[in-house]
C-alpha cells in the first residue's frame, strides 16, 4: 500500500514536472521563435524619384531597393569582411582577375533562375554609356566580365584595384528580360530580393510583397512591407503613435528626447557611413590663400556642428576615414583655436579679418551648417553671407557655375578610402568643383597608388599621407560623422540597419 502511495506520489511529481517543463518550453519557444506574417508599414520622408537600381544613387532608393534586389556579397556589420549573398564564393586568381561562383537555385521574381550571365549583364549595363548610369564611374576599372559557365564568371580589371568588391557590394543583379520588357526598371523593379514589387501608388506608397521563392530559407518573415511617403515629420510621428505606421526611418533629431521617453518605441542609433564637411572654393578671392583656409578650419566648432545637426548625438569627424579602420590616425584630431586662427589670418595679410565670404547653404537638414559657419567666421572677423538654395539650384551653383565661396554638405563614404578621395581630392574628380578644382601633384600620385595597392600596411601609409596634406592645405575640412536613429514600435523584432543604410528587411519580424 505504502509502495502504491509512493508510486502515485512519484508519478504526480513527474507529471507536475512535465507539465511545468511543457509550459516553460512553450513560453521559451514563444519568446525565441520568429513569427512569420504581418504587414510592416514604414514612414519614409520622401517619395523616391524612381527605382531602377542602376540609374539612381539616392540613399533612400538604395535602402528601398534592398527589398527587391540582391547583391553578389555584402559587408558584414563591422565592415571588416564580405558575406556571400548571390555569390557562393570568390577567389582572386591574381591581382586583376576575380573568379566568382554564383549560387545555384536563386530565382528572379519572374521565376527564372539567376545565372552568371545576369551578373555580367548587370555590370555591362552600368558600364554602357547609353545607360547613363551614375554608378558607371564606380566600375570604370573593370576591363571585362567573362562568363565561364552558367554559375561561374571572371571579372577582369584594367589594373589592380582594392575597391572592386566594395563597389560590387552595391550593384544589384537584375534580369535582362525585365529591362527589355519595361525599357528600364524605374517603376517596375524586378530582382531576386526577398520582396516582390507590389505596386507604386504615386504620392501615397510603395508596396512590397513576400517573395515565396527567396533563396534564403525561412526568409522573409514579413508578408508585406508598405512604404508610406510622409514628408512632414510630425505626421509620421502621429502615425507611429496611433499605430498607422510601425517604423520611421528618419526622425527629426530635435525630437530625440521625446522618442526616447516613450515606452512604446525603440530607437536604433547608428552611425551612417557618411561625412559632413565644409568645402572651400580655392579659386575664390581670399580662399585661394591656404593660410585663410587653415584659419577657418581651425576656428570651425565641430561640437557646434554636432549639436546643430544631431543634437550632439553624432561623432566629430576629421577625415572621411572611419575611426574603426586601420587607416585612421589620431594625429588628424585637433582642438579649436580661435587665437591661432587669428594669427594665421594676420600672417595671410588680414589681421582683423575684415572681408566677406558667401556661404551656400543647402535647404533642408544641412541648412543649419551655414549658420554654424557664419557664426564661427564672425569669431575671426570674417563676415559671412548665407545664401540658401534648394537642391537643384545648389547643385547648379556648386557644380556647374561654381558660384560660391564656402558650403557645408555631406556625402557617403566607404571602407575603401579611394571612394571619397577620387571624387573630391583630384582636380578632375566628380565633385572637384566643390574645392575649386584644388590640385596637388603628390595627392594625385598617392590616390592613384592607393587605388591599386593591395597591401593593407602600405595603404594605411598612403592614406595617412594624403590626409596629412589635405588637413594642411584644407581644400575642404571635415566636421562630423552623421548619426541616424530610426524609431519603431517595440513589437518589431530583429531590426537592423547598417552604416551604409542597408536594411535587413528579410530578417525583421512582428512580435504581435
Amino acid at each position, binding site marked *: 500500500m505504502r509502495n502504491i502511495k509512493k508510486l502515485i506520489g512519484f508519478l504526480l511529481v513527474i507529471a507536475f514536472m512535465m507539465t511545468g517543463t511543457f509550459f516553460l518550453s512553450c513560453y521559451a519557444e514563444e519568446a525565441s521563435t520568429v513569427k512569420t506574417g504581418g504587414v510592416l508599414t514604414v514612414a519614409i520622408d*520622401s*517619395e523616391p*524619384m*524612381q*527605382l531602377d537600381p542602376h*540609374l*539612381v*544613387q*539616392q540613399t533612400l532608393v538604395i535602402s528601398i531597393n534592398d527589398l527587391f534586389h540582391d547583391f553578389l556579397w555584402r559587408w558584414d556589420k563591422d565592415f571588416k569582411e564580405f558575406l556571400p549573398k548571390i555569390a557562393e564564393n570568390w577567389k582572386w586568381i591574381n591581382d586583376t582577375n576575380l573568379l566568382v561562383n554564383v549560387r545555384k537555385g536563386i530565382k528572379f521574381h519572374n521565376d527564372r533562375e539567376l545565372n552568371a550571365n545576369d551578373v555580367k549583364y548587370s555590370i555591362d549595363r552600368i558600364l554602357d*554609356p*547609353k545607360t*547613363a*548610369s*551614375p*554608378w*558607371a*564611374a564606380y566600375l570604370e576599372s573593370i576591363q571585362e566580365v567573362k562568363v565561364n559557365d552558367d554559375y561561374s564568371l571572371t571579372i577582369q580589371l584594367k589594373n589592380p584595384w582594392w575597391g572592386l568588391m566594395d563597389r560590387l557590394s552595391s550593384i544589384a543583379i537584375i534580369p535582362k528580360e525585365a529591362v527589355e520588357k519595361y*525599357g*528600364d526598371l*524605374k*517603376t517596375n523593379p524586378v530582382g531576386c530580393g526577398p520582396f516582390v514589387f507590389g505596386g507604386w*501608388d*504615386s*504620392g*501615397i*506608397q510603395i508596396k512590397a510583397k513576400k517573395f515565396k521563392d527567396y533563396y534564403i530559407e525561412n526568409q522573409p518573415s514579413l508578408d508585406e512591407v508598405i512604404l*508610406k*511617403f*510622409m*514628408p*512632414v515629420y*510630425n*505626421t509620421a510621428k*502621429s*502615425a507611429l*503613435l*496611433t499605430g*498607422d505606421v510601425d517604423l520611421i526611418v528618419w526622425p527629426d533629431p530635435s525630437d530625440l528626447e521625446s522618442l526616447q521617453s516613450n515606452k512604446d518605441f525603440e530607437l536604433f542609433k547608428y552611425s551612417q557611413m557618411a561625412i559632413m564637411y565644409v568645402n572651400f572654393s580655392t579659386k575664390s578671392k581670399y580662399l585661394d590663400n591656404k593660410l585663410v583656409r587653415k584659419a577657418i578650419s581651425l576656428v570651425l566648432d565641430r561640437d557646434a556642428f554636432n549639436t546643430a545637426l544631431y543634437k550632439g548625438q553624432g561623432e566629430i569627424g576629421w577625415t572621411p576615414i572611419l575611426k574603426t579602420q586601420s587607416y585612421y590616425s589620431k594625429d588628424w584630431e585637433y582642438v579649436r583655436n580661435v587665437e591661432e586662427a587669428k594669427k594665421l589670418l594676420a600672417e595671410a595679410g588680414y589681421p582683423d579679418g575684415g572681408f566677406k565670404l558667401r556661404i551656400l547653404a543647402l535647404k533642408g537638414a544641412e541648412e543649419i551648417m551655414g549658420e554654424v559657419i557664419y557664426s564661427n567666421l564672425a569669431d575671426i572677423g570674417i563676415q559671412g553671407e548665407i545664401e540658401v*538654395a*534648394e*537642391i*537643384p*539650384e*545648389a*547643385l*547648379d*551653383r556648386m*557644380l*556647374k*557655375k561654381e558660384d560660391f565661396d564656402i558650403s557645408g554638405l555631406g*556625402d*557617403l563614404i566607404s571602407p575603401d578610402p579611394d571612394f571619397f578621395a577620387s*571624387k573630391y581630392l583630384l582636380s578632375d574628380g*566628380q*565633385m572637384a568643383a566643390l574645392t575649386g578644382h584644388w590640385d596637388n601633384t603628390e595627392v594625385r600620385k598617392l590616390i592613384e597608388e592607393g587605388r591599386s595597392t593591395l597591401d593593407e600596411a602600405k595603404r594605411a601609409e598612403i592614406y595617412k599621407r594624403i590626409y596629412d596634406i589635405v588637413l594642411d592645405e584644407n581644400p575642404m575640412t571635415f566636421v562630423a560623422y552623421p548619426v541616424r536613429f530610426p524609431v519603431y514600435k517595440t513589437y518589431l523584432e530583429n531590426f537592423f540597419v547598417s552604416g551604409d543604410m542597408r536594411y535587413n528587411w528579410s530578417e525583421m519580424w512582428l512580435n504581435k
Partner: protein
Amino acid sequence: MFKYLLKRLGFGLITIIGISIIIFSVIHFIPGDPIQVMFGQNPNPELMKIAREYYGLDKPVVTQYFLWIKKIIRGDFGISIMNNRPVLELIIPRIGRTLVLTFLGILISLIIAIPSGIISAWRHNSWTDFTVTSGSLILISVPEFWIGIVFMIVFSVWLRILPTSGYIPINENFFGWLKILILPSLTIASVQAAQTTRMIRANMIEVLSLDYINLMKASGVKNRRILYMHAFKNSFIPVLTLIGMQFGYLMGGIVIVERVFAYPGLGSLLMKSLNERDYPIVQASIMVYAFIFVIVNIIVDIIYGFLNPKIRY
C-alpha cells in the same frame, strides 16, 4: 450670353497660352536641371550629356517649347523625366483628389461661415459678434500646417477616431476615403471660413443699414425673411468673388495641407517635381491650375448674372 461666354473662353485661351510661355521660360531658366538632380553628388559630364540628349534637353528652349506645344495639341503631355511615367497618368488622379479636397474645404467653410457671418452682423457689437470676429481673426492668423497638426493630435492621436494621414481610393473603401478627407478638409475650411465669415459680416452690416431693409422692418416683414431672402442675397456677390478667388488659391495653396496629411494631391506632386526639376510634370500641372482658374472665373461671372438681375451680358 453665348457671345459673352465665347469671348471669355477666347480670353481664357489667350491667358493659358501666355501662361504656357511664361512657365516654360521660367522653369527652364531657373538654376538646376533634372539631369543634374538625377546624378546628384556623382556628376559625370559625358553621361549627363547623353542623358540630356535623350530627353531632348540639349535643344534650344524655343525649339523645346514648340515641340512641347505640338505634343500637347495631340493630347500628349510627355513623360516624367524622373520615372518615365506618362505625365497624364500621374496628374489626372491627383487633379481629382485636389478638386475634391478643395470643394469639401469650401463647402464646410460655407456651412460654418454663412450662419456665423449673418448672426455676427445681425447681432452687431454684441458678445456673439465679438466671439465670432475674434475667433475668425485667430484662425486667419494661425498657419494652416499648425491647425492641421493640432487637428491630427486631437482627433487621431488623442481621440483615435480619424486616421492621421494618407489616402484610400473611393472605390476601395468609401467610408475610409471619407474619413481620410475629414481632417484635411476641416483644416482648409477653418482658415477659409474665417475669411468668408468676416466678408459676409462686413457686407451684411452694410446692407442691413440700407433704407429698403428698414422699410421692410417697418412693414413687419419677418427678420428671417429679411436676413436670408434680401440682405444675404444682396451681400453675397462680393463673397462669391472671394470664393472664386479662394478656389483658385486653394488649388495651389493646399499643398501645405497636402504635405501635412500626406495627401497625394496635385500640389504635392508639383512641389516634388519642382524640386526635381521634372519639367514635363511642372509644366502640365501649372497648365492645369491655369485652366481651372480660368474656368472658375467664368463660372463666377455667370453666377453673378443669376444673383443680380442688373448684371447682364
